[in-house]
């Protein structure tokens, strides 16, 4: 179907038609021409089993998603999922309430979590269908993209 995923993966989770949930896909889009050859950048709906497939066999995975963490809209949090369990990111909007956090924690329970697994979560203002991004989340896209590039460069020398 698609080409196989490379060892290092950036996964933008979200839905382009649900307000700030478009963040993940848009970060992936912003990075497409700026990545080294060892890195795949893909959009994903967040469906739990498909997301776990994306984690499997990777050297490093960087997940990007809009979240509800009780912060100011546009705030960015970077979680190292290898060192401690992910908090709930409030993503109970689809797929029978199983989402990014559950996929990562299931992978941990099943011992398929990659050696590097980081989650960049951005506080969303809206998940309304058909709405565009809020200004605060829109402004976060370049910051998250740069943070991802830095992380990839620092961890494993993939750049």
């Amino acid at each position: 179907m698609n080409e196989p995923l490379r060892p290092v993966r950036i996964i933008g989770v979200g839905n382009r038609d649900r307000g700030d949930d478009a963040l993940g896909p848009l970060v992936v889009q912003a990075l497409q021409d700026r990545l080294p050859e060892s890195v795949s950048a893909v959009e994903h709906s967040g469906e739990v089993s498909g997301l776990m497939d994306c984690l499997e066999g990777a050297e490093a995975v960087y997940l990007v998603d809009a979240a509800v963490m009780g912060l100011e809209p546009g705030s960015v949090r970077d979680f190292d999922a290898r060192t401690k369990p992910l908090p709930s990111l409030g993503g109970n909007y689809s797929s029978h309430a199983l989402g990014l956090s559950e996929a990562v924690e299931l992978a941990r329970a099943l011992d398929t979590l990659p050696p590097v697994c980081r989650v960049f979560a951005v506080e969303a203002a809206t998940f309304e269908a058909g709405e565009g991004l809020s200004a605060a989340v829109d402004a976060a896209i370049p910051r998250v993209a740069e943070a991802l590039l830095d992380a990839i460069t620092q961890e494993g020398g993939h750049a």
Partner: protein
Amino acid sequence: MSRKTIKVNYLARVEGEGALSVTIRDGRVSNAELRIFEPPRFFEGLLRGRDYSEAPDVTARICGICPVAYQMSSVNAMENALGIEVDGPLRALRRLLYCGEWIESHALHIYMLHAPDFLGYAGAVDMARDYPDVVKRGLALKKAGNAIMALVGGREIHPINVRVGGFYRTPTRKELAPLAETLKQAREDALATVRWTAGLDIPEAERDYHLVALHHPDEYPMNAGRIISNRGLDIAVEDYNQHFVESHVQRSTALHSHLREHDCYLVGPLARYSLNFDQLSPLAREAANDAGLGPTCANPFQSIVVRSIEVLYACDEALRLIEAYEEPVQPFVAHQPRASEGFGCTEAPRGLLFHRYRLNAEGQIQEAQIVPPTSQNQPSIEADLKEMVGNWLDLPADALRERCEQTIRNYDPCISCATHFLKLDVRHE
């Protein structure tokens, strides 16, 4: 009079958001209400003015768990309106695609959403720590279903390959061959799933349901058949609105469905199984017998076993369809729009899904009606709670709340599809 209130802010592991309120007075359940507070989804309105050919892709977007069901009911309705018959390999491919959806949807519900209830876990993640191999088997099964969706439907979620009259592109026999290998393993996993679910500690609870499902003389129902019930209903899909009525209740933005003369009814795996046991494959019937299920089932908590039987059947059936597949000459049946009305009804994983469309001479949709299974089951969910909760009042508060949630999850409700959503409030008065 004692009064106690147990509140849950939302009901987890159910698609969408919603709220349930159960009131217990003097040891009896005096009221059970599902309240719905997600804004209505105006799919029926959204479809008006669109071209008939857009319906399968628009309606596939209603649900991420059962998009094939929406596509199938909509294309069946359009083909009924346009007077065309989709037969032979194209019909078989649609059945294969539906098998994929049953496998992935049921596997998700059995392993990730429902099994934790029976084993006393808050969710799939906790369960996976103690039962890693079981959860891996569930994920592998779901993946096999997704593989069918991707190959026949064009992608795993919201498939894009179905069109009125057939498909945009049909697979070659060679392309289907590796899928058969995946499905052989899936069939083994499905058989293991039946045995495993049959061994769960399943509460004793039965209700005298009015069961409603499609029935087809030659096959377990997915895409075709008459609508029948265990109380003598036997009607063509076209006559749905003469027998079923939707009404608005104040607490819900979803419509509730009732039979005009028999009030609430049950659609979904229990109904399908009980009305179509003889249409199952020999392997599935044998597994059901071994699991201790009779030819009918009225315990909603056994729905997890019945779903497992349906997953096994779907794997078996998918393999049969692939084996018998002959590449069609044309991927679709040519047709012309005309002013007409069409009806379609198929068996979504959660039950009967009815669509009706009225088209003008140019093929523009003038009117659309979509009745999802969860909308039809809502009165039955309330009736289950009203009848069953009274037997569990000696359970500790947390256990009682969990049992109520489990009772709702028996239906694998897709509250989003029914416009829909949940929060649980058990009130002792």
